[in-house]
């Protein structure tokens, strides 16, 4: 079975632009979470979605938004990009309390 898939793997944007990151969970998993990992730090929780509803939000500005589709895939959107948004963005899927991560999208903001 395929694991969590994320696209694109790498992305370069300039300040002020908008970005959309995509995630497909493991088949049968209904929950998707998003994390931001800055170099040298552990991942930080951004959002969790379950059955298309937002179940949790971390301490991130409103420039960050997400949604989950009927097939349980998810998008993370970031508006008005800042240099500090440069990070590895990770998606995790879960069926209960175990989270499995994708390889992430490396976002560079110039």
């Amino acid at each position, binding site marked *: 079975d395929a694991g969590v898939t994320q696209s694109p793997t790498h992305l370069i944007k300039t300040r002020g632009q908008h970005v959309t990151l995509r995630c497909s969970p493991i088949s049968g998993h209904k929950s998707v979470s998003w994390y931001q990992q800055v170099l040298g730090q552990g991942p930080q929780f951004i959002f*969790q979605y379950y059955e298309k509803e937002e179940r*949790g939000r*971390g301490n991130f500005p409103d420039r960050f938004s997400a949604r989950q589709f009927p097939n349980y895939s998810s998008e993370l959107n970031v508006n008005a990009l800042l240099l500090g948004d440069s990070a590895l963005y990770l998606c995790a899927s879960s069926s209960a309390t175990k989270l499995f991560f994708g390889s992430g999208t490396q976002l560079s903001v110039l």
Partner: protein
Amino acid sequence: QKEVEQDPGPLSVPEGAIVSLNCTYSNSAFQYFMWYRQYSRKGPELLMYTYSSGNKEDGRFTAQVDKSSKYISLFIRDSQPSDSATYLCAMMSAGGTSYGKLTFGQGTILTVHP
């Protein structure tokens, strides 16, 4: 003060050594405790999963949770060069809106020399 504290290392050991990695935490609501391994620029891989206190063993890996001391450990026996990676501890509370929200430590960089 961070909810989860983890010594970032780096930690360098010879092949075959026993490695001990540790995290402390402050949130007594944490019920689920995990260790992830992360290779450079890859996603974290779930290594060990423990609910509440106790020990769990899986091959060369042993995870320990001491909720009374708010302290968790990961032991790696007979360490191999392929174990060289960043090890992240992660924790989660129980209850509806907590599921899916992991709180991570900073990660410990481990290098195992041949």
